[in-house]
């Protein structure tokens, strides 16, 4: 196989100028064809071996960027479901009542998950203000098939020790099998919740279909 100065500079990860200087200094096994310098790959491999240089002459296929398997917020909400009229008067009882309602979580895991959610709230409240909280466990739930966000509207606002001390009435539960999706959903969700029109819309206790439609519109306007 024959290589040009440019090819070799790519393989070695140096500038073509460097290759030209090395040719001038007589450091490379090179042959001249007309005005062009050509390299023979087998001689180059020998040269690299002798000089202890890592040289891989096989054509490197640029590794395909691993498509980040992101999920749209609306799909996550569809997976998780929307639940209304949840009763309870403090954080723990609200969380418990919500979990009982969320049908996508297998019953066997609910007790454990509740503990983890409470633990997370103890470490730091997930109330982000404006009457909204994003409860989630710190460890990811590998038993879930899909990432999901369950939206729960409370009967009465409860004191959630949120940053702005406002009582919370809407909970966005994030349950994810992998950390990457969790961070993605968290970031998308927090972006949406900064939109005051959206938070205002949430206050009106919308029905599930309307909520998902609204999220879809927001998503389209701000693709992340």
């Amino acid at each position, binding site marked *: 196989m024959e290589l040009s100065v440019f090819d070799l500079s790519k393989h070695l990860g140096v500038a073509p100028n460097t290759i030209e200087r090395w040719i001038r200094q007589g450091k490379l096994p090179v042959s001249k064809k007309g005005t062009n310098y050509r390299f023979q790959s087998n001689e180059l491999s020998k040269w690299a071996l002798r000089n*202890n240089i890592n040289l891989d002459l096989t054509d490197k296929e640029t590794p395909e960027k691993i498509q980040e398997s992101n999920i749209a917020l609306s799909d996550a909400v569809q997976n998780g479901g929307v639940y209304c009229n949840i009763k309870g008067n403090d954080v723990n009882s609200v969380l418990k009542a919500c979990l009982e309602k969320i049908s996508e979580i297998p019953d066997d895991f609910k007790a454990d998950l509740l503990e983890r959610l409470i633990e997370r709230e103890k*470490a730091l409240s*997930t109330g982000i203000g404006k009457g909204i909280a994003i409860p989630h466990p710190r460890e990811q739930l590998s038993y879930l098939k899909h990432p999901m966000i369950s939206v729960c509207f409370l009967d009465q606002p409860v004191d959630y020790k949120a940053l702005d001390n406002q009582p919370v009435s809407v909970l966005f539960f994030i349950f994810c099998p992998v950390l990457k999706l969790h*961070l993605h959903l968290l970031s998308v969700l*927090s*972006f949406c*919740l900064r939109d005051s029109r959206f938070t205002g819309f949430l206050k009106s206790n919308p029905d599930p279909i309307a909520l998902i439609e609204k999220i879809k519109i927001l998503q389209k306007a701000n693709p992340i």
Partner: protein
Amino acid sequence: MPAIKNWYKTVYQRLFHLDDRLLLIIAGSIAGICSGLAAVVLRLSLESVLEWLHPFRHYGWAFIFPAVGALLSSFYLEKIAREGAGHGVPEVIYSVSRYGGLLRFRSSYSRLISSFLTIGSGGSAGPEAPVVMSGSAIGSSIAKFLSLNDRQRITLVGCGTAGAIASIFNAPIAGLVFSIEVILGEWKFVNIIPIAIAAVAGAQVSQAIIPERVLFFHQPFQVGFPDVLACLCLAVVTAMISVLFTKVLRQTGKIAKKSAFPLWGRAFIGGCTVGIIGMFMPVVLAEGYSFIQSMISGTFSMGLFLAFVAVFAKIFATAMTLGWGGSGGIFAPCLLIGSLTGIVFHKMLFALFPTVGCASEGAYALLGMTGIISGVMQAPLTGIFLIVEITGGYETILPLIVVSSISSTMSHYIEPASFYFKELIERGQFLRPGTDARILSDLNIRELIETEFVTVSENMVFRKFIELLKTSGQNFFPVIEDGSDEYKGMIQISGIRRYALDPGMYDMIFLNQIMDTEVITASLENDLQEVLDMMDINNMDSIPIVENDQFIGMISKTRVLDLYRRELIVQTSVH
């Protein structure tokens, strides 16, 4: 007593600390004399034991001699001296490049004894490499006694080597050239003078004890133009033979290592083989100086075919001796193979062109020796000067240079590493001064590591981390477990940018959710070469060093470049 001590102290300081060249010259000449003595002792004792064994040679059971010799030799090295077999030159080279020439005092006599046993009993090997090992160990021990630094010790190791070679061949310049070309690998002004003096001292010792002035005496040769042409062909032949010799030596060594026999058993088998070959062809036995002498003076009796076979028999016998556990060098076998090749070549030349008036057989024996020495060691200067000196004649210098340069170039083309270096290169221990490998092996992780890092807990809330970030210049934050301080992962600023610019995330995540747990880590045990390779393969600019699950620090390429450059300047500076 205190007066003497004071006086000694003053003299020592005045004389030596003022100028270490003087110290090196004096210590070097002592090293030269001692190693010269060692060489003479080995040569004389070999001569007498071979003389003593000679009458028994024609008995049928005499083939057992080399076997017993090799057995005792390997037993001695393994059990009593506790040193590896082999010829020792790579060990000396490695010690010079890695440990500043530090060698054990024991080495200064152990190889002499083991090679005496191997060669004295008839094993096919040379006494030169053991003498080199012994000379360099003497030099190293003198340096240790005077508590000198590495640089001075290396010079003294060179002095010991030069003295040994100079003494055994009675060839001071060859001693100097061999020491610098093969052992030290750098021509430095400060080295050359002490080594030259040591070489002369070694040669003088040998002359004072052994009366004959040159190792191989010869009549003057008449070298004409046809010889120079013939030399071109001879050079090609010697290059082939030297490559063959190197390959056979290495292959037999590998086969022996694979065999299931214990070390002494291997040596015994190797010795027996050599003994049996020696029954039919005594020319392969021992170091063969007397045969070389007869070839040079033209009294060698073998015919063309026999001599041709003898070349390969000697190659095989040497490989069986050295590869299977005997102790000794390849210098003398090279000389013998070379002179045999020369003779064969001359005889063929004579058969093909009987009318061309070319030089005598002896001259071709000399040229053949140069060819093999230069080809096997790929040290052309050593080849030329050695032959010129051991024969005491300059009349063959032109063909000598032709043969030497062509042979070393050709064998270098086929086998880029010489016999001495091949082993070291394979083990990654070939570290010539001023080379990348040498600098990387000298710098170690502990010198390069940066430890000034603020660590963060895995349970830290992201908002707190952002606060920390505002006042910190750090780009990498190691994340550790609370309580146990165990390393968990890394946070790299460039990797968390999308979260850091999103205030909605600040209170939602903890550091263990965004840390990178898949960062490749190195440990303090890795050497720099490995660490740099890891960084290259994974495209990293910095690599965390983690030892026993504890974060120790980081190595960054910028720091490596800084220290690498400084190291290069220091190592290649003119003293």
